[in-house]
């Protein structure tokens, strides 16, 4: 729904550990029209410059806590991601991204109640892998962003 706001345009940065780039991160908003309990958020489909980065190499930073992987996020049953709050997605990638422009394909997956979509029943039995067509709210598309890597990062 709020597809074009999913990633903040000036937020792509490399992530450093002990002075070495170990990945990249970018800021995201919730694509639905309301907030959600964190355990309903089961990750992203991420494709950066043609390379897919599965959930296992993703972490999510929200509510002032250190980045958590999605195995941990799914246990955060009563923690709320507020509709108006920005979170950060961290992706592990040795060496980080090269300076310049990058193309990121993104789909956010949130298993919130919507009501009557044909896929609802299927979701109960078989939660979707992000990128397989199920998105947050009414967003079932993979959205593409052209982003310039920003200086800095941490």
């Amino acid at each position, binding site marked *: 729904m*709020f597809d074009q706001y999913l990633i903040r345009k000036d937020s792509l940065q490399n992530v450093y550990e002990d002075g070495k780039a170990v990945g990249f991160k970018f800021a995201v908003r919730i694509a639905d*029209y*309301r907030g959600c309990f964190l*355990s309903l958020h089961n990750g992203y489909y991420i494709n950066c410059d043609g390379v897919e980065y599965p959930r296992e190499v993703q972490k999510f930073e929200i509510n002032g806590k250190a980045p958590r992987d999605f195995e941990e996020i799914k246990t955060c049953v009563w923690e709320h991601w507020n509709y108006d709050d920005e979170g950060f997605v961290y992706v592990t990638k040795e060496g980080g991204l090269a300076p310049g422009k990058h193309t990121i394909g993104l789909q956010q997956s949130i298993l919130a*109640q919507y009501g009557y979509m044909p896929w609802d029943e299927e979701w109960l039995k078989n939660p979707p892998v992000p990128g397989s067509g199920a998105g947050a709210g009414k967003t079932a598309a993979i959205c593409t962003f052209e982003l310039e890597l920003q200086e800095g990062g941490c």
Partner: protein
Amino acid sequence: MSYDIKRSVSLYSYQDEYYDGRLDLEGCLKETAKTGATGVELLAEQMIRRFPLPIETQEFRDQWFGWLKEYGLEPSCYDAFLENRIYDNRTLTLKEQVNMMKRDIRLAALLGFHNLRTLVSTPMDVIEGSLEYAAEQDVKIGLEVHAPFSLNSGWADGYMEMILRTGTKHFGFIPDMGIFCKNIPSVLRDKARNMGAKEECIKIVDDAYAKRLEKGFVKIKYDLDLGKANMEYRMANGMKEMMEAVEQAGGGPADMMYAGSSFTYSWSEPQDIIDNIDYIFHTHAKFYHVGEDYAETAVAIPEVVEAFKKAGYQGYLSSEYEGGEHLRGYMQVDSVEQVRRHQEAMRRAIEGA
């Protein structure tokens, strides 16, 4: 029969302004009051940060009731979501779902609401299991009747059976006025054109909608599997044939989007309101675009309001703007102006002779 039709605004309407920080919760209440509406509908999960914790605090409630007093607003309806997938390995048990419904009823009551909207996905057992508590808290549970669902349908009969069997006064229907669409909303067509849809394909879809309207929509059945019921409904209303025609005309993604989305709107006879008035205590006045002439491009506001008058409706019509999602991809959404116009359109229909 004498009626008492009041106007409310669902804060869902202001989702764009809230999302990009132009309005906060108090700002939304202030805008609501400016339209002349006297009621406010809230999606707590949308505009109450750290939901549901603040509602439990006296401090937040004092602020909430202070705002309502300051802006002259009455709580009209609390919109709840029964999130039954919060645990990774299973769906919530019936008991857990009933407890969640009771939590929402309690939160609604704490904020002064006497109506609670529940989604069509709420299982019947969860509603039945919550009725006694709803009566205790003086909160009515309303099942949203949103396209593709409709009143006077096999689907609605399933719930009528429960109402009659239990004799409950705390459950009924909340019609969403999107079930009274004479046309596909203009904003969807504008979006399709903006995405590059072909006029030929748009015409196929618009003609198919007009044909469904003329013949009467085939109604949706009651089924525990709503996805299945929805697909059957779509097929019974000619979706397959229409999609094939669009494909044959060389339809691309924009055309397919327009064609597929056309099935999220429907037309019911306004008489359905009159037939079911004993079970209607709140209404979502869904709308998509109101022009400068105060005419809605899809929803038949005057005809529907007339039916509410005839029926002797006592309750709110709550503006629910849903045009923004089609516009925000290519222009700034002005929900504030849209809600103002919609309230004026409803005022004219209600107060007109």
